[in-house]
């Protein structure tokens, strides 16, 4: 079933007209309300009238995460704070998070986008969803939550942690759908097997997975171990949150919510647009966003776009699986982590040398992060309690900046490799099969 056939099955020609019209209005809005964009357009000698159709989008400047940081926290908002009804935040590249704001209309669009996803996954208002994304600043939890309510289904706001209680509630409340990260779905499958609850007592039939890259092999494993249909949902907080694109029953690429988010693929090196089918960096323009509209936001996700019509009847452009990143961002337990965030913490704490190493691994389907640091010579102590206090100090600070707990390993002096320029500071041992 299709939630919004008018938009999801619109002819390509009509869609381009709608996108062009929305782009014109968007450019007008940001030119007059966001000094950052006005300056960028003036630098290029552009006025809003230069943008007539969707094809003119290539004239517009790009936006990066660094721009969001430079304008922290609200500099790119296009409406007064009195119009903003919700704030979310994601990892910034350093100590400061990336803050996004939503107007009431933005939240309506978000719920609508997620309702489209949920119906494409074959769920209806009869379903009972367990949302096991983190609730809070992360867009996953609340995003899915209001989408499920908009669909008219039931939502169990489980959030993360406490897997035993999670399994019990899924069982007792007869939950039929589960939204979480793919690695958590694998972990949950193991825990359900250990719990002794016979699979036939669970009503679970659909998994809605996103927040981190995954593979067809993981889908096969999740589907067979949990006896579910598993679907990809894609999104990022800068653009909206989950629901920017979604798979349908064909499970062959994710349909982009194109009437709200205009996709392009560019070469991360030349920044030139690439034709559909070629792999490059995914770029989005938020056609209808009011709170924090972004022109040509560089997601740094590498994938390709598929223009061919889909057998499901939807006409929207699809994106392939994300094949990697054009920057050094890591996704750990569904949370975005930049090595530069760790660097900013190490640099701000005088007790530690400005060198670090990250070891990322996946143990029993759960991501682990170890941060190796060296204590400065003057701060070494002969007392265990002092050394543990140092460890706790950096551990607390990292937790607060990264949003996830890291295992801190204090290293002997000079044991972390000193490298010039861009160094191999990350050892990612996870293999996505």
């Amino acid at each position: 079933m299709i939630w919004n056939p008018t938009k999801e099955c619109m002819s390509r020609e009509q869609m381009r007209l709608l996108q062009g019209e929305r782009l014109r209005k968007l450019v007008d809005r940001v030119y007059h309300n966001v000094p950052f964009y006005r300056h960028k357009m003036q630098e290029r000698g552009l006025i809003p009238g230069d943008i007539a159709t969707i094809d003119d989008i290539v004239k517009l400047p790009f936006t990066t995460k660094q721009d969001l940081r430079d304008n922290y926290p609200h500099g790119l908002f296009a409406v007064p704070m009195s119009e903003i009804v919700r704030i979310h935040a994601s990892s910034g590249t350093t100590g400061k998070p990336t803050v996004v704001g939503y107007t009431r209309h933005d939240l309506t669009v978000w719920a609508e986008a997620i309702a489209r996803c949920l119906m494409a996954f074959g769920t209806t208002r009869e379903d009972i969803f367990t949302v096991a994304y983190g609730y809070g600043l992360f867009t996953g939890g609340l995003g899915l939550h209001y989408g499920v309510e908009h669909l008219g289904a039931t939502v169990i706001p489980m959030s993360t942690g406490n897997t035993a209680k999670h399994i019990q509630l899924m069982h007792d409340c007869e939950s039929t759908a589960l939204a979480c990260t793919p690695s958590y779905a694998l972990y949950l499958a193991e825990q359900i097997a250990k719990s002794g609850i016979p699979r036939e007592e669970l009503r679970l039939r659909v998994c809605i997975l996103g927040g981190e890259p995954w593979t067809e092999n993981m889908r096969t494993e999740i589907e067979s171990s949990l006896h579910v249909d598993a679907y990809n949902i894609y999104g990022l907080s800068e653009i909206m949150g989950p629901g920017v694109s979604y798979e349908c029953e064909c499970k062959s690429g994710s349909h982009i919510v194109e009437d709200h988010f205009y996709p392009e693929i560019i070469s991360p090196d030349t920044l030139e647009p690439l034709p559909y089918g070629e792999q490059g960096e995914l770029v989005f323009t938020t056609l209808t966003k009011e709170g924090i509209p972004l022109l040509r936001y560089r997601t740094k996700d590498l994938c390709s776009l598929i223009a061919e019509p889909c057998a499901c009847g939807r006409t929207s452009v699809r994106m392939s699986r994300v094949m990697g990143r054009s920057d050094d961002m890591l996704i750990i337990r569904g949370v975005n982590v930049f090595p530069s965030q760790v660097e900013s913490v190490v640099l701000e704490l005088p007790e530690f040398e400005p060198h670090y190493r990250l070891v990322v691994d996946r143990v029993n389907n759960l991501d682990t992060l170890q941060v190796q640091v060296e204590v400065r010579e003057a701060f070494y102590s002969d007392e265990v309690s002092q050394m543990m206090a140092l460890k706790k100090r950096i551990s607390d600070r990292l937790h607060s900046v990264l949003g996830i707990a890291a295992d801190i390993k204090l290293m002997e002096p000079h044991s972390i490799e000193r490298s010039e320029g861009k160094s191999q500071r990350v050892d990612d041992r996870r293999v996505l099969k």
Partner: protein
Amino acid sequence: MTIKQLSVFLENKTGRINEVTRILAQHGVNLYAFSLAETADFGILRMIVSDVEVARKVLREANFAVRLTDVLCLNCANTPGALAEILDLLAREQVFIEYMYAFSEGETASVVIRPTDIEKGIATLNRADCPFVNFSTLRQQQK
């Protein structure tokens, strides 16, 4: 009154302690006493050595994190109750002990104590006339 203790930070990996003892051996440094404090992921090796300055220099050159700390070293009789007597004195005066270790040889035992408040520790033990050990007596004892 105090004696210099050398401590070395060690990652928990096989072979690190013998690395330290081998380097000290190569430079003719003798170990009078040592103890190892271990946690889940690192250890702190604390030593009383025959030549603190040489030991510090050669270990630092080998990239070890080395620290010198003042500790108290006392002799007591190698008999039941001798240590209890010393610890009673400190406890009565509310002197908190961070860590301690001991070694015995023949009729005497030596105990290394790191009180949180070293001055108070010295004063307390002085009042009771406890025999502190310095490096020259340690060297004598070792011969």
